[in-house]
């Protein structure tokens, strides 16, 4: 039995990073909010650097609840898409050239999104991670959580449902 030798780590990483870039870096609203993603294997952590423009209550001051909701929604949709593309990225079915050109399958659509505000958002950087709790052919369920200085004291959590794109595009 012959085994295909493992790809060099740089090649694998290049393709994984290109997939993330193709997903996140081309969305104007993600750039507008200044959200970035940190990748470790298949785990993504979203980062929202604090700026005055994100303030919703100038007297406290606190991050706008809408910003927190948007941050969680962006984290959920990018994380879901990344998990969804992962196998094709790993197998090389999605080619590096296509990823770098930004040619991607259609993205999932949000059906509904519920956010719980647990603590007011401080004027600090925020972080978020999402977990795909169910990914079916048509629907997916995702949970997301955002925190600031202390991982055990989340500022908000969200539950969302998505409609997956049809395979025929």
């Amino acid at each position, binding site marked *: 039995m012959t085994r295909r030798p493992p790809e060099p780590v740089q090649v694998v990483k290049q393709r994984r990073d290109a997939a993330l870039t193709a997903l996140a870096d081309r969305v104007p609203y993600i750039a*507008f909010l200044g959200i970035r993603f940190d990748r470790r294997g298949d785990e993504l952590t979203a980062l929202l650097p604090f700026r005055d423009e994100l*303030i919703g209550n*100038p007297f406290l001051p606190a991050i*706008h*609840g809408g910003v927190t*909701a948007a941050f969680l*929604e962006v984290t959920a949709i990018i994380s879901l898409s990344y998990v969804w593309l992962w196998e094709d990225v790993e197998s090389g079915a999605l080619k590096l050239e296509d990823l770098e050109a930004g040619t991607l399958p259609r*993205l999932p659509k949000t059906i509904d999104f519920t*956010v719980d*505000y647990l603590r007011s958002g401080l004027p600090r950087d925020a972080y978020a991670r999402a977990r795909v709790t169910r990914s079916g052919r048509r629907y997916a369920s995702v949970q997301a959580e955002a925190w600031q200085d202390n991982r055990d004291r989340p500022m908000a959590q969200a539950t969302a449902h998505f409609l997956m794109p049809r395979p025929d595009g």
Partner: protein
Amino acid sequence: MTADKARIARQFIDAIPHARALDMKITEIGDGFARIEMPYAPHLVGDPQTGVIHGGAVSALMDTCGGAAVMSHPASPAATATIDLRIEYMRGATPGQTIVAEATCHHITRAVAFVRAVAMDDDRDRPVATATGAFTVEQTS
């Protein structure tokens, strides 16, 4: 009193940096009702292939509008914060069109205000999204 409350709520919303960043404008407010408009802008796009506005921007609009409705309610002290917000997306907003959100604070207790909201583009008969939320009622001492 109510007109005064509406004025305070309007001033408060106008002073929110993120509401300004999204170019939100209050077109009606008072007695637990608020209407806020958010013009289409290229930096709000969530899907570059279609030009449809990101759901997150619609969430930000709904949240602001819900808070404004609570603040304008006759039984509410001036300040509020969102406890939770659920948004249902019926369809993508048509690119290029202003999004209008209307929120109603339909019930209020000493501690909690309940809100329903709807977001529309130019086709007012087919909402883009609906939302329900609970907001705090901040008691001023």
